[in-house]
């Protein structure tokens, strides 16, 4: 029972790590940054530790091997190249499968990966003897059992050390080869100005903590020729670290000063100096700049790093069931309703008492609004991590097609409701797949068109006017309007000679069963998809549009509401009932003229609006209520749009627009697709929310 609990925790934790790993491995392919290698190492290290605890022995042993490879990468023994990235990605997939319990598939793949690992470890030049802490294909099981030792090393050198032909840096490299530094500080405080310095003198010293499997004498040997007449101190501090202590991660929860010193911008001494002269109410950063130890740019860099770390800590630690948040929001809705009830009572009181009560309510109202915003903000998470998962997809898919495509991500910090993020994954993947398959041309074709061989797909998110926009843009060949038109004519969507603008042509791409691809591709071209993309996005109360320029590329722009829990709605009255129509779907409101109303075969009752026929919906018929007006020319009509269709909803009165907290309807209350939920209005009345998309679908049946 307890085991199952541990496994459950491990399962959840590892999923997050694996996602991060994937993003970092792909980042490594783009730029070989020591920080990224370190992060990868830590991820595999954590996976190794927790898989051991959770009882996944195979994962434990395997990740240990990969950890050793990464250790070699860190020490420069293995080069970062395509081969390494492939190995790491393959390993990641294997670990994923193994954790999911896919034993059958795992065996062969694991052997292949281990063979690759061995080749990689074996082809490395034999470094100065005790480099490795896991021999090539050696005895992993035994090695795993051997614990690590930790040594604190201080290495200060005489200033004339170079004269005896000794290179302190070489010594430090030898030390690094014994294991890894879990703490590394370089004291550069003695380094004079470039003009003043005697470059033949040594000014540097090091304070390090080395984690190694080597015995103490191996560490001593590194300093064999210098320890007598230089300032060398070696201390075994293994006792301070328990055997299962994870690598001390100084990158997390780092304070600003630490970040600046670890990045080599500030020396230890400078930091101590700043800290000692730091007065109350003064910011550390400002003082560092004032003292000239770092520039504003350095400081901004460090602050950004700090922010990144903070964000990573936050998103990886807070786990709240979204249902609980929904519950909170619902409760808050009740408070708002209670408040408006009290407000009404205040209206009935005598002037003075009523005024006092209203004043008190005003304060309460402000707090509840803030409360609501806070709850909403908890549901919001940055889109970055879910965007990152597409890197792998783009890499693998483009390789399969022999194309060279890079995915660029912008605005990953843009926040969006968690539910929305979960639901846009598939549509986005589809649009990206489209860009890979149809958008970006093969490298040769690109070259002859004077473009870079490598194609680019941009995934961009940003806020605008209370909405979030997500764009998938490619720099490919753009939509072939001529072929699009031919295809549309062949399918009978357009007639020959029909005058249509480009936007209208592009919107045909979203029609069910439409595809311009000549061949059915591995990835797309089956004509299933873009209509599904549109439907999915519309079910999130969003919209999608395309912009395409021949030769330059295509952009899909998805507009999404910030959240699914609140909408901007238009309150309308039909008879004695109030309905809410989402503002996003409304095109216009009007009073139809009697002569514009017709009955058309197969379409039923329609209204002619500027030459176009719009199906008329008598809401009172649909819901079985008694209206004030049953003649369309006496009532008002709200024209709404869903996909390619427009319908006119007949109503008695427009009441005004309002922010609506949506409450879901249980299935037994209504099975109608035309309703998406309900809302409680200020006076306690319930209003039903019309699902325009569902309404149109129901009508078309």
């Amino acid at each position: 029972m307890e085991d199952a609990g541990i496994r459950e925790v491990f399962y959840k934790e590892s999923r997050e790590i694996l996602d991060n790993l994937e993003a970092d491995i792909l980042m490594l392919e783009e730029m070989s940054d020591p920080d990224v290698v370190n992060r990868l190492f830590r991820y595999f290290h954590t996976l190794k530790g927790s898989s051991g605890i959770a009882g996944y022995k195979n994962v434990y042993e395997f990740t240990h091997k990969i950890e050793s490879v990464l250790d070699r990468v860190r020490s420069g023994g293995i080069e970062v190249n395509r081969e390494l990235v492939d190995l790491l990605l393959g390993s990641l997939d294997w670990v994923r499968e193994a954790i999911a319990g896919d034993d059958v598939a795992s065996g062969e793949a694991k052997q292949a990966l281990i063979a690759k690992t061995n080749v990689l470890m074996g082809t490395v030049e034999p470094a100065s003897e005790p480099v490795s802490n896991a021999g090539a294909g050696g005895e992993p099981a035994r090695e795993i059992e051997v614990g690590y030792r930790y040594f604190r090393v201080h290495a200060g050198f005489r200033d004339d050390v170079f004269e005896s032909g000794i290179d302190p840096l070489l010594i430090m490299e030898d030390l690094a080869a014994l294991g890894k530094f879990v703490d590394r500080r370089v004291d550069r405080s003695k380094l004079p100005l470039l003009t003043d310095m005697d470059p033949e003198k040594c000014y540097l010293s090091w304070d390090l903590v080395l984690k190694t499997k080597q015995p103490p004498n191996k560490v001593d040997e590194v300093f064999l020729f210098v320890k007598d007449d230089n300032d060398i101190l070696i201390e075994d501090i293994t006792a301070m670290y328990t055997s299962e202590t994870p690598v001390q991660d100084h990158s997390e929860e780092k304070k600003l000063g630490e970040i600046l010193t670890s990045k080599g911008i500030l020396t230890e001494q400078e930091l101590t100096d700043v800290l000692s002269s730091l007065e109350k109410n003064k910011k550390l950063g400002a003082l560092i700049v004032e003292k000239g130890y770092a520039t504003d740019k350095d400081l901004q860099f460090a602050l950004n790093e700090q922010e990144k770390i903070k964000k990573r800590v936050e998103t990886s630690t807070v786990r709240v069931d979204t249902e609980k948040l929904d519950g909170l929001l619902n409760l808050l809705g009740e408070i708002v309703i209670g408040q408006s009830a009290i407000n009404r009572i205040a209206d009935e009181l005598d002037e003075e008492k009523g005024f006092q009560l209203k004043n008190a309510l005003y304060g309460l109202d402000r707090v509840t609004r803030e409360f609501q915003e806070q709850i909403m903000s908890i549901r919001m998470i940055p889109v970055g991590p879910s965007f990152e998962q597409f890197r792998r997809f783009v890499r693998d898919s483009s390789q399969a097609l022999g194309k060279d495509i890079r995915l660029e991500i912008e605005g990953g910090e843009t926040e969006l409701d968690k539910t929305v993020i979960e639901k846009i994954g598939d549509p986005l993947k589809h649009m990206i797949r489209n860009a890979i398959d149809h958008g970006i041309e093969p490298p040769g074709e690109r070259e002859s068109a004077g473009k870079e061989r490598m194609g680019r797909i941009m995934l961009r998110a940003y806020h605008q006017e209370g909405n979030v926009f997500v764009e998938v843009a490619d720099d490919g060949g753009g939509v072939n309007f001529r072929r699009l038109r031919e295809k549309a004519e062949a399918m009978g969507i357009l007639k020959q000679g029909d005058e249509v603008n480009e936007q209208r042509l592009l919107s045909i791409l979203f029609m069910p069963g439409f595809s311009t691809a000549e061949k059915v591709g591995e990835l797309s071209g089956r004509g299933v998809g873009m209509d599904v993309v549109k439907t999915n996005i519309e079910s999130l109360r969003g919209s999608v549009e395309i912009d395409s320029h021949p030769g330059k590329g295509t952009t899909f722009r998805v507009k999404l509401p910030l959240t699914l829990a609140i909408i901007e709605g238009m309150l309308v009255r039909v008879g004695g009932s109030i309905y809410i129509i989402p503002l996003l779907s409304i095109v216009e409101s009007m009073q139809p003229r009697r002569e514009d109303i017709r009955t058309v075969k197969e379409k039923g009752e329609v209204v002619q609006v500027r030459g176009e026929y719009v199906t008329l919906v008598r809401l009172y018929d649909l819901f079985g209520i008694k209206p004030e007006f049953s003649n369309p020319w006496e009532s008002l009509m709200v024209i709404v749009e869903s996909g390619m269709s427009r319908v006119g909803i007949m109503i008695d009165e427009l009441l005004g627009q309002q922010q609506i907290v949506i409450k879901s309807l249980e299935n037994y209350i209504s099975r109608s697709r035309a309703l998406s939920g309900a809302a409680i209005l200020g006076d306690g009345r319930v209003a039903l929310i019309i699902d325009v998309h569902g309404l149109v679908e129901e009508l078309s049946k």
Partner: protein
Amino acid sequence: MTVVTLEEDTGIKKIRQFQSALRDAIRAPDEVMLDFSAVRRLDCAAVQVLLAAAREMRETSKSMKMRGVNEAVRNQLYLCGLR
């Protein structure tokens, strides 16, 4: 942009030459690009001069860029605390 090309044997033997090359580059009004393409590894003396130069560049808010840095050198710079 002033480009300083490091020689294959940049190190203690030619350290004064390297120091003065960097000094001149810093005095130039534009950005400095260090070309490491020929360098396989550095020594402590060379890294020290680089560290001092980097610090002075920072103080004058000028940027120092590097190109052609191989893994070994990158690792050495990292060991000496240069980002």
